[in-house]
């Protein structure tokens, strides 16, 4: 029930056990506060089973304000109501899955397969994957890539694979100044590549990481900043800034 990552849902009809929440570290006050607020405001609104959009946005605003007040919760926290469930979710951050030691500011590779190999190697050098598994993983990513390109257009590619040797979601980031042909959807060269490896039994985390990646990479400003970064440290700073300040999208 501890909502540290991902989404946790409570059935409103069951009533949240506030005593239980008080045993949570740090974030307890926020959750208890939101639940109390929710209860006093929604309990008697039986004529309308589903809380309206306004309620949800009020709740979201409320939780956001609380979030900024609370230093320990600087990430953006989602609290929303879906049918009869209250969903509390802490959004995944770049820092949760991107291995900063595996940032390659200038890829040597000139083609798709070489770029994937280089990024898998970067993860190996960072100690995230064992050398025995490097070849297996590289082959699996290339195989997946050949099934359907992950070049999503706008100079971005997200090669990924779910592999049984991967125990924890991890990603490497590579930049290419010359551009790499990734057989992208818009047929244009790719400049930013995020290689995402996930364990097969955590499909939800994989989706949340993808959401985080595209939420930012969709924004022209973010893509521009990323392409202007020449050093791994600059990229790391940019990613951290995106984590701290969700408005920089």
């Amino acid at each position, binding site marked *: 029930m501890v909502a540290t990552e991902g*989404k946790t849902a409570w059935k409103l009809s069951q009533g949240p056990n506030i005593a239980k929440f008080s045993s949570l570290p740090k974030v307890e006050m926020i959750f208890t506060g939101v639940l109390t607020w929710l209860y006093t405001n929604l309990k008697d609104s039986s004529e309308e089973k589903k809380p309206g959009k306004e309620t*949800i946005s009020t709740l979201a605003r409320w939780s956001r304000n609380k979030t900024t007040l609370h230093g320990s919760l600087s990430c953006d926290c*989602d609290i*929303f*109501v*879906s*049918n009869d469930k209250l*969903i509390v979710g802490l959004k995944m951050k770049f820092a949760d899955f991107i291995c900063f030691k595996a940032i390659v500011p200038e890829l040597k590779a000139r083609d798709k397969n070489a770029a994937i190999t280089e990024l898998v190697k970067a993860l190996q050098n960072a100690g995230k994957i064992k050398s025995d598994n490097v070849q297996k993983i590289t082959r699996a990513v290339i195989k997946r890539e050949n099934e*359907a390109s*992950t070049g*999503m*257009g*706008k100079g971005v590619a*997200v090669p*990924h694979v779910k592999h049984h040797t991967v125990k924890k979601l991890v990603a490497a980031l590579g930049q290419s100044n010359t551009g790499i042909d990734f057989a992208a*959807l818009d047929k244009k060269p790719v400049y930013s590549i995020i290689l995402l490896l996930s364990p097969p039994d955590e*499909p*939800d985390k*994989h*989706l*949340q990481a*993808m*959401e985080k*990646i*595209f*939420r930012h*990479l*969709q924004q022209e400003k973010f893509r521009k900043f990323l392409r202007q970064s020449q050093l791994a440290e600059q990229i790391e700073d940019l990613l951290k800034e995106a984590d701290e300040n969700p408005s920089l999208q």
Partner: protein
Amino acid sequence: MKIRLYNNLFLLVIWSPILLNMLTGDNSLGNGLCETSVEIKNADGLHMRPAMQFVDIANQFQADISVSNNENTVDGKSIMQMSMLAATCGTKLKITAQGSDAEQAIHALKVLVEEKMFDEPPPTAKEK
């Protein structure tokens, strides 16, 4: 008597598309606006491959298609935006289409998500 019969027939003609929609679960709102809610049923959720299938089908229609979860409403024809839904297994999404072929689009997308389940397996009993 005759007039009454015609009247009833007339009413039936007017109401039949609405009744039909009620039966199929789709919700036509007039003006080529149509919406439905679907639940993601495959274990891995709406990851890239299913999202691409969705976008491919959406792009076969002229109607504007938007998809929303509780937080975001995104363009159903953009793969990047669809990836932002992070729709896990069990997530309910609202699909809205507007345009001359809105109804067909909604039907095709509902079949893809709920019946074909993107040609992927549902969660096994253990995972549930």
